[in-house]
C-alpha cells in the first residue's frame, strides 16, 4: 500500500532524511517514532507531496509520489503537526472548504461533512469560529479534515498532541476503528498508544531507520539478554552466589531490601530461559519466593536504546538503559 524506497532529503551539510525504506501493508497502522528532529515530519511531508525527496521515491497505492503526485494526494488524508487552520472560518465552513479542495463532488459534500464532524466529535461546535476553539478542538478539526474525502491512506503527525487524557483515549479508539478501511502512518510520542494500536513500528533517529519490525518481534529481539527479577522473603546470605550458579545466568545481583523483601536481578545469557531453574532453587532452599518476573523490554526501552546508542558513535556502543 505504501512503499518507501531509499528516500533521502539532504540540505547543504546535513541529511534530514537519509536513505530510508519501509513498507506499510493495507489496513496496517504503522507507528512512526523518533526523537524530535529525527526527520519524521520531513518524511511525512515528502509522502504527502508537499516536498520532493533529494533521492529515492515512494509509492502510495501503486502511484509514484513524483509521477502521479495529484493522484497520490487524492488518496491521502494528512494531519500536519501544528494543525494549520483558517482562523476566521467556522468549523463547518472550513470542512466544506477542505472537501472542495480535496475534490469531493458537490453532491457528496453534506454526507462527508457529517461523517467528518462525527469523526472529530465536533457536532456541537460546527458553527464555532475556528479561532475561538481550544487546542484540543483544533486538533479534532485537524482529524476531521484529514478524513473528509474518505482517503485510503492517513498520515497523522502527532494527532494526540494537546489533548486531555479522555480525548486521547477517544482519539486512539477512533484511529483504531479507522484501520479497518484505511492504511495509517501514525507519528506520536505517546508510546503506550503505539503499543495499543500499531501493528508495526519504524523508529528513526537522525534521518536513519534504527529499528523496524512488528512490535512482538522488536520486544523479543531487542531483549538480547533478558533479565529476570526475583523477590524473596528470607533469602540466605549466599543467595546471590547460589543464583549466579544457575546454568544460563550471566550475572546475579542483589538489588534492594525493603520491608523484609529482597529483590534480586538475574542477567541471563542470550536465548536462555532460567525461570524454571531459579524457581526450583528458591523453593528448595525455602527462601520464601514471593515473585518471579521476566522483564520484557518495553517499547520505551527500545526507543531509548535505539535512539541513544546512535549518539555514542565512534566509540563503544553503550545501551542507554544502562546509563540511565
Amino acid at each position: 500500500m505504501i512503499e518507501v524506497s531509499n528516500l533521502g532529503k539532504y540540505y547543504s551539510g546535513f541529511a534530514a532524511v537519509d536513505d530510508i525504506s519501509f513498507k506499510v501493508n493495507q489496513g496496517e497502522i504503522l507507528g512512526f517514532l523518533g526523537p524530535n528532529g529525527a526527520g519524521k515530519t520531513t518524511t511525512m511531508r515528502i509522502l504527502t507531496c508537499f516536498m520532493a525527496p533529494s533521492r529515492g521515491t515512494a509509492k502510495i497505492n501503486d502511484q509514484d509520489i513524483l509521477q502521479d503526485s495529484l493522484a497520490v494526494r487524492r488518496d491521502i488524508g494528512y494531519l500536519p503537526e501544528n494543525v494549520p487552520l483558517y482562523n476566521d472560518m467556522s468549523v463547518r465552513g472550513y470542512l466544506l472548504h477542505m472537501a472542495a479542495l480535496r475534490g469531493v463532488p458537490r453532491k457528496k459534500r453534506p454526507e462527508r461533512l457529517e461523517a467528518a464532524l462525527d469523526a472529530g466529535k465536533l457536532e456541537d461546535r460546527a458553527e464555532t469560529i475556528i479561532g475561538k476553539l481550544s487546542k484540543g478542538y483544533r486538533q479534532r478539526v485537524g482529524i476531521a479534515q484529514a478524513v473528509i474525502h474518505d482517503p485510503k491512506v492517513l498520515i497523522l503527525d502527532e494527532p494526540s498532541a494537546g489533548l486531555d487524557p479522555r480525548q486521547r483515549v477517544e482519539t486512539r479508539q477512533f484511529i483504531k476503528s479507522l484501520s479497518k478501511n484505511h492504511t495509517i502512518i501514525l507519528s506520536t510520542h505517546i508510546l503506550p498508544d503505539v503499543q495499543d494500536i500499531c501493528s508495526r513500528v519504524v523508529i528513526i533517529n537522525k534521518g536513519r531507520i534504527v529499528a523496524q519490525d512488528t512490535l512482538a518481534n522488536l520486544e523479543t529481539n531487542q531483549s538480547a539478554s533478558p533479565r529476570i527479577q526475583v523477590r524473596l522473603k528470607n533469602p540466605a546470605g549466599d543467595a546471590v552466589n547460589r543464583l549466579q550458579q544457575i546454568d544460563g545466568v550471566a550475572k546475579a545481583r542483589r538489588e534492594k531490601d525493603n520491608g523484609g523483601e529482597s529483590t534480586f536481578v538475574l542477567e541471563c545469557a542470550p536465548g536462555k530461559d532460567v525461570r524454571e531453574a531459579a524457581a526450583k532453587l528458591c523453593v528448595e532452599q525455602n527462601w520464601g519466593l514471593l515473585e518471579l518476573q521476566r522483564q520484557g523490554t518495553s517499547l520505551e526501552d527500545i526507543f531509548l536504546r535505539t535512539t541513544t546508542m546512535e549518539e555514542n558513535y565512534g566509540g563503544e556502543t553503550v545501551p542507554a538503559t544502562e546509563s540511565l
Partner: protein
Amino acid sequence: MSSITYLFSKELRSYFTSWLAYVLLAGWLFITGYIFVLLIVSSTMMPNFNLSPLFSNMMVFVLFITPLVTMRLLSEEKREGTIEMLFTSPLTEWQVTLGKFIGAFLFMAILVACTLYVPFFTFRYGSVDGGPIWGSYLALLFICGSAVSFGVFCSSITDSQVVAGFLTFGGLLGSWILSWLQQVAPDNQWASLVSQLSLYSHFQGMLGGALDTKDILFFLTFIFFFLYATVRILESRKWR
C-alpha cells in the same frame, strides 16, 4: 478548472467578509466621484468636456489600492502554515496561483465597475465620443491585471504581509516613476527604452480610444511573466 473557479470565488468572498473591501470601495467611490464633480464644475469654464483626467488619476490610485488587495494572498498562507494544507490537496501550483490572481483581479474589476455611473451620466446628459471612455476602461482593467499579477508575485516571496505590501507598492511606484522619463527627455533613446518598461507608458493610446496590439501584448506578457514567476516560487518549496 472547477478547482480554479472554487478557489477564486472563495478568495473573492473572503474580501467581502472583512471590512477591507468596504473601506476600499468607499474611499475609491469618494475620490473618483470627487474628481468627476470637479471636472463637471470646471467644464463650464472650458470649451469641451473631457474625462481623461479622471481616468489618468484612477490609474494612479490603482497603485495605492493593489498592495492592500494582494498583500495577504500567499504570504498569509505561508505564515499560518495553511499552505501545507493547500499543497497536500490535489491542486497544482498553477491552479492556486490563478485562483488567487483571478479572485483579486475580480475584486479590482468590481471597484472599476462601480465607476460606470460616470459614463452613464455623461452619455445621458452630454454628447461625448465613446471610444476614449471604453478604451480607458480597458486600459484600467489591463493596469489592474498587471498590478495584481505583480502583487501576487510579491506575496509569494515572503511570509510577511507588510513586506509583500511594501514590495508591491514600491514596484508599482517605481514603474510609474519610470514612465516620466520619456516626458522629461523625449529625444533620448535610453530614456524612451526604459520608460517603455513601465506599465504607465502603455495606456496613453487607449485613453484616446486607440487599441494597439503592442500595448495589449505588453500587458498580457507582464501578467503572464509574474504569474509564471509565482508558480516557480511556489514550486521551489519542494527543492529547498
